[in-house]
C-alpha cells in the first residue's frame, strides 16, 4: 500500500471506531439501542473492502458497521437505522442487526448466523448469469463456519465456479463462547481445501497484510471466476452485544490482543516511518469525531416511521 492509501485506511478505521464508540456512548445514555460492535476488527473490514471495486457486491451480518463504513455508508443514516428512524438505510425496520444498503452494494444482510453464506451463492449466480465483472464478497464469523450452511455454501460455490470471496473474520468468539469450545479446527482454510477451494489465512489486525491478501484473492476470483476463502485472524475487543461486561473473557488473552489494536498498530507504523505526524493523526481522529456529531444530530432529528409503515414493504 502506498502511504496515501495507508493514511486513507487509517482514516476509515478511525471513522469506524469513532462510529462505534459514539454508539456505545449513546447506548449508555439510553439514546440508542445496543449493537454488536466490531471494535478491534477494523483492519479486516477496511483491508478487504479497500481491495474491491465499485461493481462488487458485499454480504455481511450482525457485525456489519465496519463493512458498511469501509464501503462508504453514511454514518448518519446508519445511526438513524440503529435508532429505528425513518431515514435509516432500512427505514428503521432493521435496527442494527441486518442493515443492507443496496445503493452502495451491501446487499441482503442477515443476522441469522450463516444466513449470508446461503444467500451469497445466489447473488454470485446472478452475477455469473447476468454478466459483468463484479464479484461477491461474503463476510462471516468463525461461528458461522460451525453452521452447516458454511459447508453447503462452499461446496456449491466450488462446484459451480461462483465468483465469491469468502471472508471468515475469525475473531476468536462466537457470542459468549470461545472458539476453542466450538471446534478442534484451528483454521477454516483446510475445510475449504477439502471441498476443492483455495484459501489463505492472514493476520487480520494488520491492514496492509489484509489488503494485500484480499487484493490477490479478489484478482484471482475475478480472473478465474472461482471462489476463494480468506480467513482474517483478529479479535473482538468489546463484548458480543452492548452492554457486555466481558466477565467471561480471559483477561490475559484480552490484554494481549489489546496490545495489537489494529488502529494503534497502524498509527504507530505510520508515525514511526514518518508518514504521519502526531498532529495529523490527531486531526484524523478529530475529523471523525466531528462527522459523528453531525451523524448523531441527523439521526436524532429523523422521525420515527409512522403506523402506516407497520405493514408496508411486506409484499412486492
Amino acid at each position: 500500500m502506498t502511504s496515501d492509501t495507508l493514511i486513507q485506511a487509517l482514516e476509515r478505521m478511525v471513522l469506524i471506531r469513532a462510529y462505534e464508540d459514539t454508539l456505545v456512548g449513546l447506548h449508555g445514555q439510553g439514546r440508542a439501542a445496543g449493537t454488536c460492535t466490531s471494535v478491534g476488527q477494523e483492519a479486516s473490514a477496511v483491508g478487504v473492502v479497500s481491495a474491491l471495486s465499485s461493481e462488487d457486491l458485499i454480504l455481511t451480518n450482525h457485525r456489519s458497521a465496519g463493512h458498511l463504513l469501509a464501503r462508504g455508508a453514511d454514518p448518519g443514516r446508519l445511526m438513524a437505522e440503529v435508532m429505528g428512524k425513518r431515514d435509516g438505510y432500512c427505514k428503521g425496520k432493521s435496527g442494527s442487526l441486518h442493515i443492507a444498503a443496496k445503493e452502495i452494494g451491501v446487499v441482503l444482510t442477515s443476522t441469522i448466523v450463516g444466513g449470508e453464506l446461503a444467500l451469497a451463492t445466489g447473488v454470485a449466480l446472478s452475477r455469473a448469469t447476468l454478466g459483468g465483472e463484479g464479484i461477491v464478497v461474503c463476510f462471516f464469523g468463525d461461528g458461522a463456519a460451525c453452521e452447516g450452511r458454511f459447508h453447503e455454501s462452499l461446496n456449491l460455490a466450488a462446484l459451480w465456479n461462483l465468483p465469491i470471496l469468502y471472508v471468515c473474520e475469525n475473531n476468536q468468539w462466537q457470542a459468549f463462547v470461545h472458539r476453542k469450545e466450538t471446534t478442534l479446527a484451528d483454521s477454516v482454510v483446510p475445510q475449504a481445501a477439502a471441498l476443492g477451494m483455495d484459501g489463505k489465512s492472514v493476520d487480520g489486525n494488520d491492514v496492509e497484510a489484509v489488503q494485500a491478501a484480499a487484493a490477490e484473492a479478489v484478482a484471482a476470483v475475478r480472473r478465474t471466476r472461482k471462489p476463494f476463502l480468506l480467513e482474517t485472524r483478529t479479535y473482538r475487543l468489546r463484548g458480543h452485544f452492548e452492554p457486555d461486561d466481558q466477565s467471561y473473557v480471559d483477561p490475559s488473552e484480552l490484554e494481549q490482543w489489546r496490545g495489537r489494536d489494529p488502529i494503534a498498530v497502524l498509527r504507530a507504523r505510520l508515525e514511526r516511518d514518518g508518514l504521519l505526524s502526531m498532529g495529523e493523526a490527531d486531526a484524523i481522529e478529530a475529523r471523525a469525531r466531528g462527522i459523528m456529531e453531525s451523524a448523531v444530530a441527523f439521526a436524532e432529528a429523523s422521525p420515527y416511521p409512522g403506523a402506516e409503515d407497520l405493514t408496508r414493504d411486506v409484499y412486492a
Partner: protein
Amino acid sequence: MPTMTVTDAVSAALAEEMRRDPTVLLMGEGVATKRLPLVEEFGAPRVRNTPLAEGIIAGTAAGAAATGLRPVIDLLFAPFLTYAMDEIVNSAGKLRYISGGQFAFPMVVLAQTGAGWGVGAQHNHNNEAWFVHSPGLKVVMPSNPADAKGLLKAAIRDDNPVLFFTDIGLAYADGPVPDGDAVVPLGKAAVLREGADVTLVSYAKTVHGCVQAAARLAEAGIEAEVIDLRTLKPLDEDTILRSVRKTGRLVVVHEASRMCGVGAEIAALVAEKAFGSLRAPVVRLTGPDAPAPASYPLEQAFVPQAEAIESAARGLVEGR
C-alpha cells in the same frame, strides 16, 4: 382441450415461462435428470441439478431472486422444507421488509406432499399452514392439472416468494388443461359448484371428496356449494364469505392436521365476519394430530373422505 397430469402440467408451465422470460431458471436435486426436455431446450445453466442440500438450494434461490433472476426450485417433498426454513422464512419472507423494501424475492418453491404413495411421515406432511402463518410468503396448492399449470405460471410471474405444493395423490391423475397462456391468478378461489344449503371449502386432494359429496348430497336434495381455494395465501376471503352468507353453513376439509391449519383460519374468518349468517356450527374435517402413516389403509384413513364430508354437511342441514 388436451389432457395431462399435474406432473406434466408443471413441466408445461415451466417450459412456457422459461421461454417467455430468460431470467427464469430451475434448480433442484435431479431436476435436470428428470426434465431432460427442459435441459435440451434451455441449456444446462438454466436447469441445474444441485448437491443434496435444501438449505443452500433455497438460499441460492433467494439470493438470486433478489439480484435479477427468477428461480424455481424443486425441494421434492414438503418435509424436506424443514432444512430450508431459514432461507424461505427468514430470508425470502422477511428481508424485503427488514431492508425497508430494498429487495424483492420472485421465486417459487415446489414440493409434493399428501397421501397416495405410502411413503410415510418424512415424505408426507402437509405443512402448508406454516407458510400461510409466516409473513411475506404466498402459498398455492392446486387440485387439478389446469390450475397447477395456470397457478404455476402466475407464481413464477409474481414478485414474491411462492410456496407451490402439489398433492402426491393427484400427481398422475389426468385432467383437461387449456391450450395457450392460461394464467390462473393467485388469490382467487374457484367455485366448482354452486349451492344454497351448505358451503364446502377445501383445497388439493380433498376438493375431489367435496365434489363427490356434493353430488350425493344433491341426490338427497341438498345443494352444496364447493369452493376450491387454490391459493391459501393470499386467501380469497370474499368468495368464502359470500358463500357462507348465502348458505349459512360451512364444512372445511383438508388433509393437514387440524390445530392451526388452514381450516382453523377459515372457520375463524367466518366466525368473525359472517357470524350473523351462520345457522349452524362450523365443521372442520381434517387429518388427525398424527404423523402420516405409511401403511396403505392407515394412510387412506388419514384423509377425510367423501362419506364423512357428506355426512357432516347433511348433519348441518338437518340440524343434527
